[in-house]
């Protein structure tokens, strides 16, 4: 516990950028992919399997020199609904934000219906969010509803 605190202190020393906290540990790499962090040049540090009262184990990502638009960051809401953002300027937290599940989702999730066209051709999936808690997504193509239990990240 003590060690982890030290680690946090060490990596939070970014001058300006964004810290994304309270990511479920098992979804860290999905979050990285969804936000395209694997394709940018910014300095990024992350920690995972950190203890969390809320989540059991959590992950944290710190991206230097990057500020996310709401549309960008809300994409992770499906897999990290409790994620919290700390916006850092001049080494200080200047703003805190939470994520919100958008009304429409493109890509990210696979339609659970094996007979859906999106599972047979190279098509970007598209869903309308018909319920946020628990999550239920209606496929724009086959019109079937993918529930929270069937949800699979592409």
């Amino acid at each position, binding site marked *: 516990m003590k060690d982890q605190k030290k680690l946090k202190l060490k990596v939070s020393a970014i001058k300006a950028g964004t810290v994304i906290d309270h990511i479920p540990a098992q979804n860290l790499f999905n979050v990285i992919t969804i936000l395209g962090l694997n394709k940018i040049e910014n300095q990024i540090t992350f920690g995972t399997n950190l203890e969390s009262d809320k989540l059991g184990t959590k992950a944290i990502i710190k991206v230097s020199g990057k500020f996310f638009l709401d549309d960008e960051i809300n994409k992770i809401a499906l897999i990290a609904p409790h994620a919290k953002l700390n916006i850092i300027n001049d080494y200080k937290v200047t703003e805190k934000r939470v994520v919100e599940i958008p009304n429409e989702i493109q890509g990210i999730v696979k339609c659970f*219906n094996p*007979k859906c*066209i999106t599972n047979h051709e190279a098509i970007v999936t598209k869903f309308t969010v018909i319920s946020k808690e628990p999550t239920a997504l209606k496929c724009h193509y*086959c019109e*079937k509803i993918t529930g929270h239990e069937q949800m699979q990240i592409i």
Partner: protein
Amino acid sequence: MKKDLISITDYTKDEYLRIMELAAGFEKNPNRDILQGKVVASLFFEPSTRTRLSFETAISRLGGRIIGFADAGSSSVTKGETLHDTIKMVSNYADLIVMRHPLEGSARYAAEVSEVPVINAGDGANQHPTQTLLDLYSILKTQGTLDNLNIFMVGDLKYGRTVHSLLMAMSEFENPIFNFIAPEELMIPEEYKMHLREKGIRFYEHREFTDIINDADIIYMTRVQKERFSDPIEYEKVKNVYILRNKMLEKTKANMRVLHPLPRVNEIHPDVDANQKAYYFDQALNGVFTREAIIAHTMKLI
């Protein structure tokens, strides 16, 4: 903006009524030349003789020409061509695409890829909107109205896309009542009940197929398919429960009509056929007029 017909909910109530009005016109005078000089692609990636002949008759009566295929075996699909590429190519040739495909959502996708309008002639278990419109036309023709009707749906209400779409369409009209008669395994899905509750529409669920049908204005029969049951014993138990026999029609209302999307197996006993309340064969003929109306509306011909 091109006008596709993919799901029954793509149309507003006004459009349903517009199709009804046009269909009545085509019934009076089915042979018109409004499609002359136009090419319609009829792409049946899975065979459906009934639907294909109905569409192709409609196109022919409007004076259009037809290109296409009757099953995927005689198309480039066998060479591994994607739906995307087939539609891209065909939309360069034709003025309208009528498409049947075994995969769900294929029609919506085709409409996005295509430059010309797409009419969905069935995409897997998802949607078959022209069937619903011909059902509506049949109901209107036999009842003189689409308001204040008591609709009984019988059989496979879980997987039957025709009952789902008809429910969605009828719920746009004034004061309908729905009665659902189905075995436990094949009851109407929760999402449709939710839709009815939200709209404040009355509905009742029954297991027994009894004289409750005496209140019906329309009895909409569907097939109970063996492959829907995980347990074959369950199928054996219910397969003979939901059969409509002539005797059961004795005390039904005079205006009542029996509809069925066809083909039937054993769910309507042949002794019903001679009863004037049996409407399923006329219903199929209405399909041609309704499809003429849908094509004319889609292509903005009248």
